[in-house]
């Protein structure tokens, strides 16, 4: 019994695990939504909480999520996969082509298989041959982009496509959660403060969602389970942290990496197929448009954890969705950012973290300034938000990030 243990500290100790886990995140999200509802009520811009925005967010987030999970699998096993972009191109092309020939399901299967092969190729080059991981990834990006363009020129024109656009394939069946969606729509229509806004957001993600979307979302908990609950996952993370030690304990690091990188390629490729089969119905040249690299960014943003990757892809998918929606939404978000900044100033002042408080003040003032001075946020900056956000995280929060220690380092069996 120590004298410093007061009832308050024991209470804090008991409550802390609860608050620091999903409950705290849920609380934060609810708080954000509350501020958002308030802003929407005051300004009259109601686009952000409309079903259209949330369903577009989900649609844009899924490819990023798949690429991010692909990056996560590879990096957790100790190999950086810069070839995600190329592997997504493989998926868009094979998905669209086989989807056109034999239906979307075959398209996805083909994309999975070819993605697996492209991942395996990266694995041979980086694990077996041992060439630089960045060179291998970049070469895969180049070969995939060139190869897709070459094959498009040969296969698409005779089948009614174009040199850059594939012939369209059938849509995948969609699914509306019965009972829930109409109810949410009714609540959304009633315009009750806060509740209607949430209903609007939920409506977008429960109405007419593709079965593929659901299946891909399930990969997040599955990955989480494999990485932290299964024997294979433990060995995989071990290979990514310290391959020498892993090898000395009898783990076959090479085999683990082969499997992990192949899965990485498959996931990225499926994300690409989502672009050409669900988000649209054709392959189009340049469709991937840097999403593989943003997937790489979600891995950093999500601190090399499946849930974090999911959150990152939602955030970046949201900014992607904003691009095609009204400009007022961006303005409303700037106000939300300003309010959040102001609240953070208060929080940090109370907890006497002066440095963070100063940062928050600057951020809040910046939001205010943008709101007052700028009429239209240029689209270019909305597009590039994920890249800026990643750099900021890397710059200011690098100490909090916990990347796998051996990711990116060359490793040869039996050598130091």
């Amino acid at each position, binding site marked *: 019994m120590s004298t410093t243990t007061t009832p308050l500290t024991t209470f804090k100790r008991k409550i802390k695990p609860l608050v620091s886990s999903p409950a705290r995140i849920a609380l934060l999200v609810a708080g954000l939504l509350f501020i958002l509802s308030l802003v929407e009520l005051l300004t009259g811009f109601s686009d952000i909480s409309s079903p259209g925005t949330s369903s577009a967010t989900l649609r844009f987030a899924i490819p990023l999520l798949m690429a991010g999970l692909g990056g996560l699998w590879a990096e957790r096993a100790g190999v*950086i996969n*810069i070839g995600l972009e190329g592997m997504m191109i493989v998926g868009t092309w094979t998905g669209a082509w086989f989807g056109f020939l034999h239906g979307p399901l075959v398209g996805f299967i083909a994309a999975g298989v070819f993605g697996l092969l492209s991942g395996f190729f990266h694995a041979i*080059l980086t694990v077996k*041959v*041992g*060439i*630089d991981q*960045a*060179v*291998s990834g*970049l*070469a*895969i*990006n*180049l*070969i995939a*982009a*060139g*190869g897709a*363009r*070459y094959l*498009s*020129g*040969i296969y698409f024109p005779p089948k009614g496509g174009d*040199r850059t656009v594939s012939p369209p394939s059938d849509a995948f069946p969609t699914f509306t959660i019965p009972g829930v969606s109409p109810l949410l729509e009714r609540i959304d229509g009633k315009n009750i403060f806060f509740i209607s806004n949430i209903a609007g957001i939920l409506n977008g993600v429960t109405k007419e969602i593709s079965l593929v979307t659901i299946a891909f979302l399930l990969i997040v908990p599955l990955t989480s389970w494999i990485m932290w609950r299964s024997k294979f996952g433990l060995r995989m993370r071990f290979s990514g942290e310290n391959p020498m030690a892993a090898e000395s304990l009898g783990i076959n690091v090479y085999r683990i990496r082969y499997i992990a990188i192949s899965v990485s390629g498959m996931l990225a490729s499926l994300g690409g197929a989502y672009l050409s089969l669900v988000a649209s119905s054709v392959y189009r040249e340049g469709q991937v448009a*840097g999403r593989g*690299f943003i997937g*790489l*960014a979600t891995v*950093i943003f999500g601190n090399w954890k499946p849930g974090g990757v999911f959150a990152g892809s939602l955030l970046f998918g949201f900014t992607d969705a904003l691009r095609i929606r009204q400009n007022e939404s961006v303005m409303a978000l700037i106000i939300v950012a300003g309010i959040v900044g102001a609240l953070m100033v208060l929080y940090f002042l109370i907890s006497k973290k002066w440095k963070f408080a100063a940062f928050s003040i600057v951020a809040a003032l910046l939001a205010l300034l943008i709101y007052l001075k700028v009429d239209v946020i*240029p689209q*270019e*900056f909305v*597009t*590039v938000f994920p*890249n*800026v956000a*990643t*750099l900021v995280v*890397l*710059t200011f929060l*690098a100490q909090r990030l916990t990347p796998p220690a051996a990711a*990116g380092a060359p490793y040869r069996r039996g050598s130091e």
Partner: protein
Amino acid sequence: MRRSRIFWGAVAPIAAIFTSCLLMYIILSLRGESPFELFKLMVSYGFEPRNLVSEINLTVSYYLAGVAAAIGFKMLLFNIGIDGQYRMGAFFGAVVGAAIDLPAVLHVAVIIVVAMIAGGAWAAIAGYLKVRRGVSEVISNIMLNFIAAAIIAFLLSPKLLGSLPEGSQNVQTKPIPASGQMPTIKIFEGEVYSVFFLAIFVGVAYWVMLNKTVFGFNLRATGLSFRAARSSGVNAPGMIFVTTVLSGAIAGLVGIGTLLSDTHSYSMAFPSGFAFTGLSLAILGRNHPVGIFFAAFLWSFLERAGQVLEFEGIPPEIVIVMQGTIVLSIVIAYEVVARINLKQQQRAVGKVNAEVLAEVEAK
């Protein structure tokens, strides 16, 4: 000794080119074409004087990108930010060049210096993050490439620094006046940009800097072993930063030829993808100024000559696949050769050890 080193240095690139030709042969055969006829066609098309001129001009751009990458490689830096640095250099060179009015030679010099500063400053961000924050330059540079493209697209709007010429759809910067333009050399019914000489100067300067100066020695030392260099008194983190900036400054020159001798203004039509090209060329040319030149010529030759395939009904993008294969094969070849060498050394050491052991036992 000297000859054999050159010979062994050239074996891997030639083997890689051969491998990728073989792959192309197989791909084309699968299409039912006769590959040798096509190769012949490509070579004769590529060596037509008209095409040779445009190849030389492209070679110059690629060469500068290759040297920029090579400087980074000497420090074990993977400068994939060349794309963004080149854009920044060309864009701000164009903007400043259009805004000022100076006598001819001085005007050009100012534009070139501005382009180098812009490229170097953009690279400095990645350098700072690497040295002070431990951020991998690969990730930061990939992000910076996208950010550079967005910033320029934003600044290029007619309301800010760009302009929309009458009857055109492409926004571009205001034109650079005649005093800021570089002459071209008329040769084979074409015009070779005089930035060619600048590229030669950069190549020579790169070699001298690396091999004949203290700075170059420190650079190579830090690249070979960060800790050893640091403990012998080299400011290793500082060297990394300066090398990054230098690499970015050279990358800033990549677009200068097109800008000052051809378009006289920057537009979104400026090509992209110099980063991977530069890195490939540095790998292919083994970071040597002459090797990079041959690699750069090969690259632009392939790209130009590949266009003839279009007339034969073959998508010319197959050349991109070919380039990717060349890079992969050569990296694999280097790796395999390095491993064989290591094994031989180990064997040699083992032999000596065994002899020593035998002697000891005999006593």
